[in-house]
């Protein structure tokens, strides 16, 4: 089984490639990346002319998603989440452990991987809980979970509860060579908040979550990462203060990385007022921050302080959102809008180059999680994301592959989209709106 992709622009920051290349795939593995590859005389090679309008990248990896299984299958399952991933251009996702039961043991990890294997779509990398039940008291069995397939540890949805637990988690995960991912939020400062503390929350009578709730926790984690020498990864960073802390820590050589979600670099808290006041699809944690924070995040994406774009894909049933703002669940789905938002808001807006976007969505998450991919290297599995950077896209929540529809971007028109998603040499998603990718359907 050979597949030859011809004529596209290939971007692979890990090997410094950016230009017209052909890619030969054999039995699901990358065999060769080169200029003008001629198919071998023997055996059948399917040749797909992609042409220069498309961009082939190492497969995108969303290192922060919630797949809701086990326990909340009415919101999402591993299979529907993995389908949303490939529809959104992601060849792999890392799923947070706040399921029911919490993924705090190897048996839950193995269950998730079994569901993922049965789905046979995007690769799924489970993230194990830092503490048993994610209740912030005792360390979960991290080594056992690592052996079962976990790629990182987090109590996401909640912060790692105490400085002592974070210290021990970093020390122990450091032994295993895996990062601790922290949802940075000082719960005493955040209180019962539901929106960013500032003028707009005051005007709407909503209880605020101050930026400081995030900032002090990021500062804590930076101190502990420096102390332990282990790797702390800051989830969904949303404030200028937290970014400043990460930037300064990196300059000192502390092993800290961070991710930013598309909604945080696209929207700010002034959206809470209009066009629709109290739209629960604008309720997430961390909340949409001040416009100054959004601008700081964009600058961090540009200057390299931000390592990763991750969606914090948080599917919720309409019943959890069609209620009073105070009572609505936090979070929005992100897998099927992230690529278009990144192309439109970052690349076409002139903030980052396409190669930098590939680093943010593929190279860096692969490096941080130490998972395969993130590069186009002969011998690696052929996980590819193919972009149509100039495609006109209209977001349609009704057409999502995800089980949930909770997005504030429904109806948005954006420039740039996914042409196809190839996992292990198989084209699992081919966008019908991209004629240049049509050949992949037959391959």
């Amino acid at each position, binding site marked *: 089984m050979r597949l030859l992709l011809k004529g596209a622009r290939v971007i692979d920051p890990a090997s410094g490639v950016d230009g017209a290349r052909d890619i030969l795939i054999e039995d699901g593995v990358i065999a060769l990346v080169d200029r003008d590859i001629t198919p071998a005389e023997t055996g059948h090679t399917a040749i797909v002319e992609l042409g220069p309008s498309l961009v082939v990248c190492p497969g995108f990896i969303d290192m922060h998603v919630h797949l809701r299984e086990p326990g909340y299958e009415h919101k999402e399952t591993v299979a529907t989440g993995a389908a949303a991933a490939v529809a959104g251009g992601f060849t792999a996702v890392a799923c947070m452990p706040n399921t029911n039961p919490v993924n705090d043991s190897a048996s839950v990890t193995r269950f998730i991987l079994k569901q993922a294997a049965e789905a046979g779509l995007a690769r799924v990398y489970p993230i194990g809980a830092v503490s048993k039940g994610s209740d912030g008291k005792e360390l979960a069995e991290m080594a056992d979970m690592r052996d079962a397939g976990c790629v990182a540890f987090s109590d996401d949805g909640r912060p790692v509860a105490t400085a002592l637990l974070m210290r021990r988690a970093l020390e122990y995960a450091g032994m295993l060579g895996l990062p601790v991912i922290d949802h940075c939020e000082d719960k005493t400062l955040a209180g019962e908040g539901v929106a960013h503390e500032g*003028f707009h929350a*005051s005007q*709407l009578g909503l209880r605020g979550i101050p930026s400081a709730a995030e900032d002090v926790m990021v500062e804590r984690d930076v101190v502990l990462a420096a102390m332990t020498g282990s790797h702390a990864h800051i989830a969904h960073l949303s404030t200028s203060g937290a970014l400043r802390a990460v930037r300064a820590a990196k300059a000192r050589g502390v092993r800290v990385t961070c991710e930013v979600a598309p909604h945080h670099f696209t929207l700010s808290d002034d959206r809470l007022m209009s066009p629709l006041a109290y739209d629960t699809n604008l309720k997430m944690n961390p909340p949409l921050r001040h416009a100054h924070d959004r601008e700081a995040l964009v600058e961090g994406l540009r200057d390299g302080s931000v390592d990763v774009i991750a969606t914090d894909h948080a599917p919720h049933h309409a019943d959890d959102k069609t209620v*009073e703002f105070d009572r609505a669940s936090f979070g929005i789905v992100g897998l099927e809008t992230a690529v278009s938002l990144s192309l439109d808001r970052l690349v076409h807006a002139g903030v980052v180059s396409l190669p930098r976007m590939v680093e943010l969505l593929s190279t860096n998450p692969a490096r941080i999680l130490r998972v395969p991919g993130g590069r186009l290297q002969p011998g690696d599995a052929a996980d590819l994301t193919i972009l149509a950077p100039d495609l006109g896209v209209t977001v349609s929540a009704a057409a999502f592959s995800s089980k949930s529809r909770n997005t504030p971007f429904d109806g948005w028109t954006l420039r740039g989209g996914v042409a196809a998603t190839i996992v292990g040499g198989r084209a699992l998603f081919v966008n019908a709106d991209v004629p240049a990718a049509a050949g992949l359907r037959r391959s």
Partner: protein
Amino acid sequence: MNDKAVRLRGKDLLGIADLTASEISLVLDTAEAMKEVSARPIKKVPALRGKTVINLFYEPSTRTRTSFEVAEKRLSADTLNIAIATSSVVKGETLIDTALNLEAMNPDLIVMRHASSGSCHLLARTCKAGILNAGDGMLEHPTQGLLDAFTIRERKGRLHGLKVAIIGDMLHSRVFRSNVYLLTKMGAEVWACGPPTLMPAGIEQLGVRATTDVEEAVKDADAVMMLRIQLERMQGGFFPSLREYFQVFGMTPERVRLAKPDAIIMHPGPMNRGVEIASEVADGPASVILDQVANGVAVRMAVLYLLAGGGDDETAA
């Protein structure tokens, strides 16, 4: 100048934030006529005869619910009261389901009080019936703002150019927000005073002067409005003690003397005597606290009439 409004634009009254200055004046002018009705021996007019008004209260209320009910009855509306304890809602139906069930009985207006800010917005998007906000979370209590303005205007003849000091818990107060929106739209100068722990973020962007110095706030004020300290909310340690609160922010006769000689003292109730206000002030000659209650009925009659009354439907048919 704005053209004089002759009707409200929307089917709902969700907050003062949505009203123009001219609509506010319309409500206040209409309330003057309604006040006259309440002074008659037969306190009833047929303005809302055949109209159904549902009072849906998710939070306990004596004053506001009674005031609405009196207003509705004086306008001859058919009224019914539904009080829902929050605890039963937790296991029971959603707000929207409750609203749709009520809507199926074809009411003309739903008057709602609810603990969540924006809940009336949610209801207004769901229901054909007009929604009248009787206090939602920390957002607005528009009829309170209107009755406060009515009371000030009655005593001072105007709102424009007056200095109004609002003192107390601004963070959790829907009365505060409605008053700020209303008074700033009508050209009053609003001073907000309280401990910094009870000031909402970005308070000055709301168009007020904020201070922690009660004497600065009260100095030369035309009206001083005390906000209730919600004792049940004060467990979080927003200030050290009620005793210290009264020392620093309480309205005493000495502080009242800093205001204009003809200043009025207001309180939306229920009062905590000796916490935010001294009894001598609450019961003193400058107090208009009971006038506020009386005016509440007139203002609510005006709003009910403007939302549900009038002959528009008949002429349209």
